[in-house]
């Protein structure tokens, strides 16, 4: 049975790319979110096995979204999508409960490695 994924990013381009990488590896993309608050809402509805979370998003940022999600589901498996130069934010996200992170520009192999680690 394939794992289900919720992809959160404010850029369509990024969501598409991540979805493609994961879909090709056999994951099932069950939803997408453009803002942090959407991410929190969709997580509640969809209960995905994995969430990919952009850090900088309008409305509610990725880190706050992680806090919200983890508050309701401490076992939530969230993979942060960050960019170079976001060291402090990534550390903060991990402290908030994110399980791992990948850095843009994405290399499919690294994304999949990180996903494997998160799903354990």
């Amino acid at each position, binding site marked *: 049975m394939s794992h289900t994924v919720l992809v959160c990013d404010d850029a369509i381009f990024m969501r598409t790319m991540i979805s493609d990488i994961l879909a090709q590896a056999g994951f099932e993309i069950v939803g997408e979110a453009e803002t942090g608050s959407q991410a929190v809402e969709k997580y509640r509805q969809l209960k995905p096995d994995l969430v990919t979370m952009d850090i900088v998003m309008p409305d509610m940022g990725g880190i706050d979204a992680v806090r919200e999600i983890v508050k309701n589901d401490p076992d939530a498996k969230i993979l*942060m999508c*960050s960019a*170079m*130069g*976001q*060291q*402090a934010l*990534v*550390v*903060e*996200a*991990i*402290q908030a409960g994110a399980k*791992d*992170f990948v*850095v843009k520009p994405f290399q499919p192999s690294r994304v999949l*490695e*990180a996903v494997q*680690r998160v799903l354990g």
Partner: protein
Amino acid sequence: MDLSQYAELFLAESREHLSACNHLLLEWERRPAAPEPVGGIFRAVHTVKGMAATMGYARVADLAHRMENLLDHLRRGGQPPADETLQLLFRATDALEKSVDLAVAGRERDADVADVVADLDRAMARLAPAAAPRALAAEPELMPLPPSSPLGGTGRLISVVLRPEAPLKGGRAMLIVRKARSLGEVQAIAPPPAAFETEDFDGRVAFQLETARTAAEIEAAIRSVGDVERVTVVGEAAGEGGEGGDEEHVTPVESAGGRSRHIRVDLRRLDSLMDLIGELVTAKGWLNELAAERRDPAIDDVAIQVSRLSADLQAEIIQARMTPVWQVFDRFPRLVRDVARQLDKQVAFKVEGKEIELDRAILDELGDPLVHLLRNAVDHGIEAPAERRKRGKKPEGEIVLAAVRERSSVAISITDDGRGIDRAQVLAKARREGLVDAHTDALTDDQLLRVLARPGFSTAATVTSVSGRGVGIDVAMTKIRALGGSIEIRTEPGKGTSFVLRLPVTLAIVRALIAAVGPERYALPLTYVAETAEFGAIAMTTMEGREAMVLRDRVIPLVHLRTLLNVGGDAPPARRPVIVLEMGERRTGVVVDGMLGQQEIVVKGFEAPQGTLPVFSGATIMGDGVPALILDAAGLL
């Protein structure tokens, strides 16, 4: 866990950070408005704090912590520091350095940091009255471990190095710490997690982990986090025997695509390795002699193979002992600055050729002579700013310390653009003290140096606390000569002075000419052998009343080793070799009875009995096991 085994590592790394601190403080002093230095100083002090806390050096960690508070405030404030604050930071860095040394020597109690700690706190209170001692609660890992903490218990020290190419290493380090926490109790994280958030976190993290898991389990767990280059687990696990963890002390290094890796090795290991190689070289010499006697091709083959292998081995071990000069030069910018400040002089100090390498044993001895010469340069060489202006010079003097690799030696020069040495004054004083003939009316550079290097000779009107010219040169000269090196001086009135130190690249094994005098053999290092000639076949003359020979229009004074060393035995052959030694501009011919060829010799220091002529630099054991003395070229010249 026995932490003492990490003391040396702690010392070495702390010194690196404190050296960086000094450099950055100097830079900050030059450009107070620049924002970069304070960040770097903060991180360096911070790292020392974390390491000291891990080692259980509470006083060191506490001092570092207070410095860090002040630095953090300055860093956030973004204001150029007051001069007073900078001087306090210099002082605190010195105190930290001293207490690190004391702590490692087991005498942390002797570290007198009370004054500087009080001054740091006062400065902090003045700068930020509201920001009472910054709450440590947010970073409990930073606190020095209380004495009762189970350092001697079951904790293991884990160090992790992330792959150099890993992005956002701080995030990865955070994940590693979290992973470790899932295995047991984590303490004393260095650097503390706050450092993970900075962009220049270098991907190295260490912490103590109290867990019953095996080293292999710990390593596997940490590697599972990803981007891990290396994990080192040291110390005993709970319930494990004392010996069990021992082999883990070896830094496990995964080979990663042939990149060069470094481990730290106790210098004494290298020394004893060198001694062993020395004995091997001696044995090899013996084997070669035997092979030559027996004329057995099978023995010959083995002898040749042993020769080749031992030569390779020797080259490798000498290479392993090579150390870049910056390891000693690194502290000089601070020294020059301090001396200049003390004397109200302005000095721009430049270092060139930092990466040039010398044998560690030589480099270690070089610090003191260089300190003397640099102090002299600031004190006597560089003029006061007003005087320089009067002479049409820039008010800021310049001192250049440069290392250059020459054929078989390294030349280190200290050049200042100061007033130069007053030859007339030195000559007058030398005459008064009877150091030169009364009718000498000019001193050559060589003579000048010899006069200056007389113990206690000083022309300084007043001997300052910094230096009295002469004393330093005397000390420097003795040291450099003992290392088989030489000093030259060049000085020009009004333009400056330059000292050039020439040193052999390595002390341990040198090629030498073996000369026979009567029944004795003597070794002359080839470094200083210019050529050989034949006594009895060349034109003779005298030079300043001394016997000399004429070699290609050059008059070279002679020394008869037989007479000099008072060697008995049969009368020497009428025609016999002269070995011409050369050092800088000076040449001397050494007349010996015969030459026995060239050979590699292993230099052993030797304690010359009182009254021995100062012409020996050491001793060596010949292939047949009989010792021979090594002649010191500088002494013969």
